[in-house]
């Protein structure tokens, strides 16, 4: 009996499907949406992380973000690749800002295009959750009475 084993490429070339950027200039959700636009997409989900004006009831003046850039880019790319393996992602963009951000400014944009909305929501949610756990980017919150590196201490 002839048994034929077929190997499926589980990690196809994702170069033109994924756009990862770190920038010290204001981010544009439109640029991310334009990147992920795809004729086969039925659902595009955009997550925008913005600078909130308070933490635990204390007024926040501004945030400062810094990144270990080469590794942050690599970890963000890994997240997009993992998402593309778990869900039918047609295109994905992850853009993160560094530097000083005022209240309301955009810290991160994650855009995902999938054939159907359920996968798009799930893939986008996965991406921001994992980004927050693994990407070497740090934010410092500034209050009236001082500044704190977020999550550094219990």
């Amino acid at each position, binding site marked *: 009996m002839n048994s034929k084993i077929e190997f499926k490429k589980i990690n196809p070339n994702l170069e033109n499907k994924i756009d990862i950027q770190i920038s010290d200039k204001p981010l544009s959700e439109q640029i991310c949406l334009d990147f992920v636009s795809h004729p086969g997409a039925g659902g595009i989900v955009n997550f925008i992380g913005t600078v909130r004006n308070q933490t635990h009831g204390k007024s926040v003046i501004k945030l400062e973000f810094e990144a270990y850039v080469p590794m942050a880019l690599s970890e963000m790319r890994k997240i997009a690749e993992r998402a593309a393996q778990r869900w039918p992602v047609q295109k994905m963009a992850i853009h993160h800002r560094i530097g000083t951000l005022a209240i309301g400014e955009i810290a991160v944009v994650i855009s995902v295009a999938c054939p159907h909305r359920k996968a798009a929501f799930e893939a986008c949610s996965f991406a921001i959750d994992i*980004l927050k756990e693994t*990407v070497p*980017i*740090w934010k410092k919150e500034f209050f009236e009475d001082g500044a704190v*590196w977020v*999550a*550094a*201490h219990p």
Partner: protein
Amino acid sequence: MKILTFGIAKDIVGGSEMDLPYVEGMTVLALKKAVLGAYPQFEKLNSLAIAVNNEYADDDLQIRLKDEIVLIPPVSGG
């Protein structure tokens, strides 16, 4: 051996890099112990990871002199 620092690690060591003596075949664990020995304040952090050449490193990884080593205090991107 030069070790780069970010976030609160920069505040603790007082700069964007710190120096440690390199011992042939030393592991990431040995490096962490040396860092904690030099700066006990790292003990109070939620975590301290070590990146070697842009990858998170396990404790048993052996460090080479040419490796790029970075202290990764708790991350807070997004």
